[in-house]
Structures are given as C-alpha cells and as structure tokens.
C-alpha cells in the first residue's frame, strides 16, 4: 500500500522531464526536494494523477490515480502552491462544500457538514465571506480545510510555506504536524522538510538521493550553496 511509482518516465513533446523513477512511499512524513525545474512538481502531479506517466506505472493504495479519479479522491488530496489557483468558489462555504458534493453528498448535508466544521474551528462567521477578501494565510488555511473535508489518507503539499509570512508559516507548520494523514511535502527549501522521516532529492528528472532527512539534507544544502556561489544562471534551458 502507499504510493508506488514503478519505472516512471514523463516527457512533454519528446522532452524528458522525469526519467526512471521507482519509489515506494509509505512513511508518514515524506519530503521531496530539488531545484526549480528539477521535475519535483511534475512528480507531484504524477502522484496526484493530474497527468499520466509516458511509461511506467503509478499507484496510490493500489489504484491508478490518473484513471480512477473518483477512487483517488478519498485517498489523496493536494494543496497547491498558490491558493489562488486552488480556490474555485466565490464564498468560503461553497468552496468547502464542493469536495463533499463531488463525493456524492446532497447539497443540504454538505452545507450542514461545512457549518459544523466552521463552528468547531471557531470560524462560523466565515461561511458567507468572499474568498477573494481572505488574507494569504487564511486562503491557505481554507484550501487545507477543503482538502481535509474529503478525508484523504495522504496529502500532497506543493511548497506549502512559499507565500506565507513567518507567523503564518509557524501556524501552518504546527497545523500540518498535528495531522494524522500521510504528508508528502515538495519544496526547494530544505527547511520545509526538516522533520520528515524520509527525504528524496530530485535532480534533472532523476532521484539523486533518497534517505533520512539527516542523510540527504546536509548534502543538498552544500550543493545548493556551491551552485549559488557561481554565476550559473546565464544559460537558458533549451
């Protein structure tokens, strides 16, 4: 069980993005690090079933996430990097109810469940608020709650702290660490995955290192600092 990738390649118009990825992920806290453009976000989209691999196989608890969309909804949720790309509805209540409606609940039952959640969180007054008026941290919180409403076993987090200021970041980190779900955190920032049971370093579309946080992160940090010291951002990737 858990997330299995077996000989996965992914290419866009013949250009390889990911190559030969084979992983079995079942630790409770997993971190995936890499530079911008290393392919880590594509890896997340493959796991979530938003794209299908060019070759190889992806399975989440034994089901193909790209084929069985309804089945994967209960198993896996995603928190996108930018909440503005994730929030689909004008009001908070509609946003939260959408996932439940997608899983086949009646409108009234979904509405009631949303109100129960908001009351339990001390945010009943949010229900009718416009999502566009929320702060960045509140939007992120809303996205997380919308994912949690669907009670998935695993949550994929794409740069969960990128847009947050320090206090909001601390609150978010605390909230995430208290979750019972398996978390897969993707980040360019080693700090975001420090407490993970397992860290995977993706470089140029391949798994470069795979081990505990203590094994992988110091080497990753060293490599990033060395790259930063040089003036390497002159080339434009073809």
């Amino acid at each position, binding site marked *: 069980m858990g997330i299995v990738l077996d000989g996965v390649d992914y290419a866009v118009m013949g250009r390889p993005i990911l190559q030969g990825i084979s992983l079995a992920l079942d630790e409770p806290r997993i971190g995936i690090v890499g530079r911008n453009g290393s392919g880590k976000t594509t890896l997340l*989209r493959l796991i*979530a079933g*938003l794209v299908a691999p060019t070759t190889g196989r992806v399975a989440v608890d034994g089901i193909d996430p790209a084929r069985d*969309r*309804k089945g994967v*909804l209960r198993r896996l*949720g*995603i928190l*996108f990097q930018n909440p*503005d*790309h*994730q*929030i*689909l*509805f*004008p009001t908070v209540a*509609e946003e939260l109810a*959408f*996932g439940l*409606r*997608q*899983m086949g609940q009646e409108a009234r039952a979904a509405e009631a469940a949303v109100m129960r959640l908001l009351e339990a969180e001390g945010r009943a007054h949010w229900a009718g608020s*416009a*999502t*566009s008026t929320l702060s960045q941290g509140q939007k992120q919180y809303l996205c997380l709650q*919308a994912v949690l409403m*669907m009670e998935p076993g695993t949550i994929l987090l794409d740069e969960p702290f990128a847009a947050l200021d320090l206090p909001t970041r601390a609150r978010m980190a605390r909230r995430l660490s208290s979750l019972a779900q398996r978390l897969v955190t993707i980040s360019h920032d080693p700090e975001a995955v420090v407490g993970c049971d397992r860290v995977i370093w993706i470089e140029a579309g391949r798994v470069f290192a795979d081990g505990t946080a203590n094994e992988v992160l110091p080497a990753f940090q060293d490599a990033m600092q060395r790259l930063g010291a040089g003036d390497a951002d002159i080339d434009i990737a073809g």
Partner: protein
Amino acid sequence: MLTLTSPVETRLHRLPAGGKLAVLCLFSAGLFLLRSPVWLALCLAVVALLHLTGGRDLAWRGLGALRILWPFVVIVTLWHGWTGALVEGTAIILRMLAAVAAANLVTMTTRLSDMIDVLSRVMRPIAPVLPPRRLALAVALVIRFVPVLSARVGQIVDAHRARSPRRRPGWRVLAPAALAALDDADRVAEALRARGGAG
C-alpha cells in the same frame, strides 16, 4: 461581487422571482402592442409608482439607471421633430423608458440567488444536455475569477505604466491579459481535476 439588487429590502423583494419575471414578460410584450402615447404614458406612470412604493432610494436608483438612454431620447426627439411625426416619436420614447425601467425594477428587487433558482427551474428540460451542476459551477467560477483576473490585469497595467510615459495603458496590456486568463484556465482545470472533475 456587487450585484445590482437594491440592498434596501422592499415589499417587491418579497414577491416570488418567477412571478415578477412572468409579469415583466407580459408587460414588455404589451408595450409593443400599444401605439397611443396616452396608454404608454400610463404604463410608464405605473412603473414609476411601483418604483416609489420601494422608497425614494430605490426610485432614485431606477432613475439613474435610465441615464444610459439619453442619446436615444435625443436622437428620436431630433428625428421626429424634423419629420414632424411627433406623436409617433413620443410613443417610441415612452415605450423605451417604460420597458427599460420595468426590467431594471425587477433586477433591483430580486436577489441573485432567487434569479439562479428560477434559472435552474427554467433550464430543467435541457438538463441532459447541460447538467445544472455544471452551469452552477461555471457561474461560480466566473464570480470567483473576475476579482482575481481584475487584480492580475491591474498588475499588468501598473507594470506597463512603470515603464511608459503614457498615463493610460496602451493596447499592449491586452495580450498579457488574455494570456493570464489562459494560464488561470489551465490551473483551474487542474484544481478541478484534483478535486474530482467537473462531473
């Protein structure tokens, strides 16, 4: 987002939306059958009185909404003054004012949610072609993304102004605005897919 519904609750707000729309249809059709300026003036007076039952605020808003018609009032007046067909010209102006004012009155006194309820009832026969949930989703997406896209276009305009001597944005902001809409559309499609698709 703001709607054109008047925030001041009037008696007209409490009437069923479907009924108001049906009466509006009949009333508008009736206006086109009438030729006599006297009858049309009477119709306009009825609409004006209905506005006044909603209070002075509603009546002012109603009057303000008619401002967009002034060029047509001027054109018709000049035209018919020239040709001498004054009775006909008066009828045209009265009919236009009554029709637009009546329609605006229904909009001002009907909540968006009530309008959407009527819409979903009217659309029920074509549900197999256009599932009501999909239409509701599309409507929600537009209301959600008008402010998002608006902020984005605002940024593009600012970025353009920061490097241009002109005060108004040039047409060159249009292509990035269209690209922003396309990019958002791709991301929304992805977010929808991540949460079980558009059904």
